[in-house]
């Protein structure tokens, strides 16, 4: 475990905080658009998980691979995703990267190393492992790949197969487990029987890290260390963070099953507020400055929402309805 206090500079911390703030503000906007009926389908937010998520995105660099999951708005933005692409996907703009063909958190730009998750948990582990294997086969070194999952996702066969495969190949894969205590409504006690998810690192023969997911400094330094170790040939790195999601599984869920004791515990702390308090107590910025940052972010995001809401949705008459890149293979089933 790295000694986190000394390695994160004020500028790195503030940079991370501002990405977290952008994600938070954007997600607040998504929630209000959902409540107003402007978004079709689900809305899945990462409130309370931004410190961990942003640290993943910031530990990566160009040429790396990132396959985020559903609570990684902050990590996505740190890796290069934008409010514009996010809103275009949620609001179904034809101009977005998914063109209305997929929505919400199922977005990405795979050709830029930013993979579009499928809903089946664990599936992105072997996928990122394969991307890293490809880079090794081509002789490219120094890259890492990261993928995020939750406590529930660690129960899947895909998680097991993917992490084991990455370990066998000693691939530079970061697997970040956000243990937010519940998989939808199912608590840890009904999800796994080991004392700590970190125990799995030993079982798979990979390096393991435990981090307080509400502590931005700890998250930044842990992810930085893990990425460094992977880059240097240390093989897969399993990072387990304890935290609580401060929202429902999706915006349709009131998360009544989360106990009040848990909400009142340290796990229930809001990482964004903790980070802001640290900025102010260290005098890296004044409360007025942080308030201004929020105002600036809100203005930008509101302007982006206004722009995207004027954009066209996909036109079924214009879609080529082609699931094949080789268009000759597209069959037509309409009666002749």
């Amino acid at each position, binding site marked *: 475990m790295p000694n986190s206090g000394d390695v994160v500079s004020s500028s790195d911390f503030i940079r991370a905080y501002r990405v977290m703030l952008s994600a938070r503000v954007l997600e607040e906007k998504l929630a209000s658009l959902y409540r107003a009926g402007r978004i079709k389908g689900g809305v899945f937010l990462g409130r309370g998980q931004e410190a961990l998520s942003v640290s993943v995105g910031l530990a990566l660099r160009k040429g790396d691979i990132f396959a985020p999951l559903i609570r990684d708005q902050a990590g996505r933005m740190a890796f290069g995703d934008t409010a514009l692409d996010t809103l275009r996907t949620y609001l179904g703009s034809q101009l977005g990267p998914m063109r209305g063909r997929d929505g919400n958190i199922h977005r990405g730009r795979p050709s830029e190393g930013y993979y579009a998750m499928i809903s089946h948990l664990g599936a992105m582990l072997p996928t990122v492992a394969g991307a890293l294997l490809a880079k090794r086969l081509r002789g490219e070194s120094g890259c890492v790949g990261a993928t995020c999952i939750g406590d529930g996702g660690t129960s899947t066969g895909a998680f097991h197969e993917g992490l084991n495969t990455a370990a066998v190949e000693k691939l530079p894969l970061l697997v970040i487990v956000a243990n937010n205590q519940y998989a939808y409504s199912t608590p840890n006690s009904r999800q796994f029987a080991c004392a700590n998810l970190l125990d799995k690192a030993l079982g798979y023969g990979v390096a393991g890290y435990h981090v307080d997911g509400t502590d931005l400094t700890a998250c930044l330094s842990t992810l930085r260390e893990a990425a460094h170790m992977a880059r240097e040939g240390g093989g897969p790195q399993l990072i387990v963070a304890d935290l609580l999601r401060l929202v429902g599984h999706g915006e349709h869920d009131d998360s009544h099953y989360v106990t009040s004791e848990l909400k009142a515990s340290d796990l229930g702390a809001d990482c964004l507020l903790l980070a802001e308090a640290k900025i102010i107590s260290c005098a890296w910025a004044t409360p007025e400055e942080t308030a201004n940052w929020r105002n600036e972010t809100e203005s930008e995001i509101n302007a982006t929402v206004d722009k995207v809401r004027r954009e066209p949705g996909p036109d079924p008459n214009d879609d080529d309805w082609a699931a094949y890149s080789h268009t000759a293979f597209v069959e037509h089933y309409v*009666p002749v």
Partner: protein
Amino acid sequence: MSEITYLEAIRLAQRTALASDPRVFVYGQDVGSFGGAFKATKNLAKEFPGRVLDAPISEDAIVGVAIGAAIEGMRPIVEMQFADFSTCGFNQIVNHAATLYYRTGVPCPIVVRLPSGGTEGGGPFHSQSMEALYAHYPGLVVMTPATVEDAYSMLLDAVALDDPVIFCEHKFLYYHLKAKALPETNLPIGKARIARSGRDATIVTHGAMLHEALAAAKEIATDGYELEVVDLRTVKPLDTDTILASVARTGRLLCVSEEWPWGGVSAEVLARVSSEGFGLLDAPPMRLNAKDTPVPYHPNLWSVHRPTASAIADAARRLLHI
């Protein structure tokens, strides 16, 4: 040059692909120095060091790895030890590989080789024909080569394609089907082949059933009837034009498939001919499939579980009212 088996054609196609395209690698259980459960990758690990990789017994991860590598520009060939085991990798195939291009615009050029179909003693879990299952999913190309020549050339085509390919190679043909030489040219992917010309009825089939159908046609010829036999080659896309043109010539259709009947390739062929070529038919279209049970182990049971030349000949006689 000695004769080339269907299995050797598959090995040679992989060798050619590895030699000609640095993006190609082979990934699967026991494919490395052991050369694969059926020896379809024999000596390839030695000839192409670091490019023929043993995988853990993790079908889901094997396909996931292939997808990630394909996104990064590689051309992985995955060997499933048996087609039956691909159900453990089903999610990655149908939900990830098959959807990637439609969702993201990024193609997924993987080939998943499925040693398919029944052999004596194979039993319920080493005998399945899964082409219809995969053909059901948009985004997958499903190939079912029935000849040595197609096994070679279609596998090379599969590797060259940007779309994910399920390559159903038939284990029954591995050793006894032989050719004098590898082909120089071949039909395009998605094009069926008239394997035998005839005027009285059309048999549409694929995979190992082609050879049972050809034997049945030979038998029926002694009765004075000529059966036309269409080898589908790929079941997705399905060459409806060639099927309809044949039915237009003969007026009668029997579709033969080793798969289970419900929702299989034969069901799809019959549906298309019934809806698009109803007026061409002089008799109700027929189909002949494996029995609707798990594939039995004992040769006495297995030999009548799947369609055979004599069962096909019997069905053809009913179709022709002989």
